[in-house]
């Protein structure tokens, strides 16, 4: 027993000596200097964004590339819905930006004001849907919103075109649209069928790929479908767009009618609301500028995310709003 113990201490001592020697050797050759060269010019800080799930992909796309350019800035994006973002995060002062797929409501502005938070409205893109039919279709090139709602409603569920309008051919309607996982699907229900309405019919070819919708409508004379506007603009020769009559006569979908607000109800502007006080911080002001400056970028806004980019005039207008706000925040 005693013998055992001496052996133990001996080996532990050996162990410690050798480890210590190893450490000393290392210390001699392997040191680092801790002088930090501080870069005063780099932006740093956090940016908190919440709000609409529709604007979410756009905000994360810009957040991602902004984060790549400024490694010390941390961008956090949360999808809470426009209203949830205002009520629970933005107007309580937790977030710097709130995304919204509709303008801020009066009561939300009041809630923000009660916490000394002033939202600045910036338009960042336009979300538009296009209803498309086959190029040989000569009867349904103009549809009223009611007809559109009837075709897609779960209650009416017309099987032939004649069921909608007696003058139209007695042929079966072939329906193509985005699947129910898509934001486009939700927006269509919102805009055409109504939140409390009959609901979207389910006997249609639902897909998550816009390409399949174009192919389907292109291949059948009696087909109708809908998709994001951005995708239609790349395929204008394969299918024809339906002019939508919301009571003021049929309006063709185009960048101009979508931006001007004539193309209702299938187009809506998308917003982000920075809070004024946050714009006083340099990294947040810089991100807001970056957001608007890139909102005309078709490759991101239209191709990657699927919205209608801002025009140059719109961009200039939004930028001047933003710069005014930044000046006010700093002044």
């Amino acid at each position: 027993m005693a013998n055992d113990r001496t052996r133990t201490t001996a080996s532990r001592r050996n162990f410690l000596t050798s480890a210590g020697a190893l450490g000393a050797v290392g210390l001699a050759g392997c040191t680092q200097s801790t002088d930090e060269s501080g870069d005063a010019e780099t932006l740093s800080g956090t940016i908190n964004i919440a709000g609409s799930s529709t604007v979410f992909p756009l905000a994360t796309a810009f957040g991602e590339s902004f984060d790549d350019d400024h490694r010390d800035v941390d961008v956090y994006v949360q999808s809470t819905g426009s209203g949830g973002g205002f009520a629970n995060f933005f107007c309580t002062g937790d977030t710097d930006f709130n995304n919204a797929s509709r303008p801020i409501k009066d009561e939300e502005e009041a809630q923000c004001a009660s916490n000394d938070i002033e939202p600045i409205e910036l338009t960042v893109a336009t979300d538009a849907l296009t209803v498309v039919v086959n190029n040989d279709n000569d009867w349904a090139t103009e549809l009223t919103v009611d007809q559109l709602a009837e075709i897609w409603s779960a209650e009416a569920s017309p099987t032939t075109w004649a069921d909608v309008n007696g003058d139209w051919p007695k042929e079966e309607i072939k329906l193509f649209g985005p699947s129910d996982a898509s934001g486009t699907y939700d927006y269509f229900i919102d805009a055409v069928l109504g939140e409390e309405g009959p609901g979207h019919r389910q006997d249609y070819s639902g897909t998550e790929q816009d390409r399949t919708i174009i192919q389907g409508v292109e291949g059948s004379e009696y087909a109708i479908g809908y998709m994001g506007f951005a995708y239609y603009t790349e395929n204008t020769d394969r299918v024809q767009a339906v002019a939508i009559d919301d009571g003021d006569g049929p309006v063709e979908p185009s960048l101009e009618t979508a931006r001007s607000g004539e193309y209702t109800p299938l187009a809506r502007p998308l917003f982000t609301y920075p809070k004024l006080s946050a714009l006083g911080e340099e990294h947040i002001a810089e991100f807001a500028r970056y957001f608007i400056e890139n909102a005309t970028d078709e490759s991101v806004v239209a191709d990657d995310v699927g919205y209608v980019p801002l025009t140059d005039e719109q961009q200039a207008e939004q930028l001047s709003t933003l710069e005014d706000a930044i000046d006010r925040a700093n002044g």
Partner: protein
Amino acid sequence: MATDSRVIDGFGQVSQTAGTVFRYLLLFATLAGLIALTVLLLFVANDAIQPLTADPGWHLVFLLTLVVPTLSTVGYLLARARAALSVGVAALGLVVVSTMFAGGIAMILVDIIPPITWAGYVLTFAVPTVALLAARRAVDLPLLAWLPVAAVVYYASLLGIPGPLGSVVGLEQTVPSVAALFSSLSVLPADWLLLVVTFTLPVAAAVGSYVRPAGDRVAAAVGVGGVAVASAAALSSSTVGLTPVPATTLATLVVVPTSGYVCRTVLSRPRDRIGLALPAVVVGGSLLGAVLVRAFEFAGPQSWVDWQFLTSAHSRAAIDAGLYPAIGGSILLMVTVALFSFPLGVGAAVYLEEYAPNSRLARLIDVNISNLAGVPSVVYGLLGLGVFVRYFDQPSGTVLVGGATLALLILPIVIISSREALRSVPDDMRRASYGMGATRWQTVKNVVLPRSFSGILTGTILALGRAIGETAPLIMIGAPDVLFSLPTEFSAKVSAMPLQVFAWASLYATPEFYQRAVPAGVVVLVSVLLAMNSVAIVLRNRYQNEQ
């Protein structure tokens, strides 16, 4: 009774059918969930890893170098040496699990706590501990007198003199804290060297003490060898394309424990050493296969669970998307949850089991804790939002708030499972301890806690496994759906693996995200969970063997 008066003519006939049907229904009930889950996981894994996209040559190579040798080794061990097989499986599990843990720790050391900070904290606690132990040898004072001394020494070490207490009354800081003093040195040892001293050394010492029953000299060799291997790994790391810090971490957490286990098995269980062939065959076969596949240029599967996926942040292009910030967030959350729930949960369990009188109040608390374990997690999320974010005015969605909320969520489970473990200590042992004149505190400390500790740990790890898979509370407290960098402090916003998977599934419903990134995220999440649970299972087996 009526049946008493009945005349029994014979034994009659009893049909076996009902019993047989019942038996197979039970079997079905046992297997239904398991089979459903296995099928689901296979589907998910197939989507994530896409094994069929690999070259047939790739499959052939790995069939010959890995699958066939492994299966034949297992078959041989099954037929000849079952005990050795379990040794082999344990060693293989040790390699796999320790590699995953090493990856997580390396992530922390690279991106969250730089080695200088880590070494600073180790010194902060090591310096006063050593000083106190030395002082206790020199001066003889009662225990109560040591407590304030210890408090003062630790306070000074952690916060400096006079520290925040001084700044309250307006005193200038005269002596900085140990960590501040350490990091203010202009020349410090290189990062990897700091790690070797503050991290490898303790691990090597622990492994050495584990090997010691097999011989002191071997133990010393394993310890010194471990330190040497970790240093060598750091110095030669650039040749395998790693930086020194992760290389040291990997060597410390994979090579040192594995070689310790191997040494002890070889020396103290010579008959089972054949089992070590299994990990050797698997590791060797994988390496050989990888080399051959590269030599013959066979393309592997287009797996989404790859290095890029594990090390990059979310991207709007599914192919570039990764889980890195979410993995780091999950690890940090787990650390926070463990820090909060372990002391509170075990403390409550010990009190309720060992001290609490059998009163009505105790029974009321008892019933309520059981009920709390069943409260839906979204309610805990609301609690976290209401209490931590709104009432204590913390920023939403941070590591601290998330960790505290999840800790509350699993606290009842930790308490219940810890009580179960404490209850399994036979009363005879307590009575024996009292009979020897021990106080209740001595009995708890020397008899009850040591006997039940692995059971308590098992329960805690399983509860942590529940916390790591939670999404709802994190959504409620406002954790971001998308972030691009690891949280580096407790007050930084945090995401977690299940939350990231949920964000991909719900907000990026493109086929690529839905069919590839989401399954890949699920595979990583489930692997981490299985690794955690396997540790719990090993602990439980040890605990049952001790009983």
